[in-house]
């Protein structure tokens, strides 16, 4: 069992939750007589990335990172999306790519040497396990949560229940049980 596989087990369900969050944002916009696509360029500070970029990187980080961990070349992230429809398509593709990987694909990934190009001539060098723990996980959650925070800041009615949509089966009610 590869510990680095936690990346896939975390990112796939959380991205599914993000898709449901975008559905809620669309419904909220519709109910307010607005277009959800107006949220695409929303951001929390003038020099922060907009929603489209946050969604793009939330998808790109774990898929490209997983590729590096199992010895597949990462393709550049390309351009961000302009519509909710395109963002949802991107998320669905990322979820499908992540869910196509299994624990066996990650055999040996914990100890593999990973090199990720950064800006200019700089590279990030780490063993696979540290790469997941110290870079991919914080980075993934940063973009995912900031996407949620942007929509909350825009007035979309969301809660932790949406953010953690997949954990219902783990919550038991002692009064009911």
């Amino acid at each position, binding site marked *: 069992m590869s510990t680095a596989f936690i990346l896939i087990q*975390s990112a796939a369900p959380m991205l599914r939750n993000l898709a449901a969050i975008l559905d809620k944002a669309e419904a909220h916009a519709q109910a307010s007589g607005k277009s959800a696509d107006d949220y695409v360029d929303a951001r929390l500070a003038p020099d922060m990335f907009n929603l489209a970029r946050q969604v793009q990187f939330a998808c790109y980080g774990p898929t490209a990172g997983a590729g590096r961990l199992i010895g597949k070349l990462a393709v550049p992230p390309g351009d961000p999306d302009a519509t909710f429809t395109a963002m949802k398509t991107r998320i669905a593709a990322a979820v499908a790519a992540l869910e196509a990987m299994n624990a066996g694909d990650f055999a040996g990934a914990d100890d593999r040497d990973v090199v990720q190009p950064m800006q200019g001539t700089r590279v*990030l060098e780490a063993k696979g396990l540290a790469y997941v*723990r110290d*870079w991919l996980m914080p980075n993934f959650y*940063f973009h995912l*949560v900031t996407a949620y925070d942007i929509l909350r800041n825009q007035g979309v009615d969301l809660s932790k229940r949406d953010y953690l949509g997949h954990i219902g089966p783990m919550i038991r009610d*002692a009064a009911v049980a």
Partner: protein
Amino acid sequence: MSRQFYDFATVTFTQMLTNLIKVLDKAADHAKSQGLDPDAYVEAKLAPDMFPLKLQIQVACVQVNDAITIFTNAGEVVRPGACTDTTLEDLKARMSAALANVASATPESFEGAETRVVDMPLFGTKHLVTDGESMLRDWTFPHFYFAMTTAYDILRHEGVPLGKPDFAAHIGAMIVDRAGAAA
């Protein structure tokens, strides 16, 4: 796997809390340079019905302390009272206490943690029922990173100049300049 599980939990908590303490220092410096009260950030939030900075940090510390209690099999989790923090220094002290709690947990104390059944009281009559590995992955990390990121986002929204190198300051040690290395 046991040692990796211990490292995954404790290194994550330690790095991210350490980064956020430095982020609060930067926020204080920024406020002072603008003639603002740094402690006004303590109640700042992104939406009227979202938790302010102080509660994001309280939640992060609760998640860390709960995880340590459960993974070291140290008995019942302690539910915190109302957060009475009013200053950035209060919030830093809260995070320092959580850091000390993490540092007190040894790899041996985590023995069997990832496969042990977890039944943790939440709010009201609700419980989290799963195993240790799932608790860390599906409960602790999503809540912890939510609070870490939202604390950072609140301060960015308030105009504090911050960047990824502040949020993930620990990765500086993993970055090599190939131009320099080749010379």
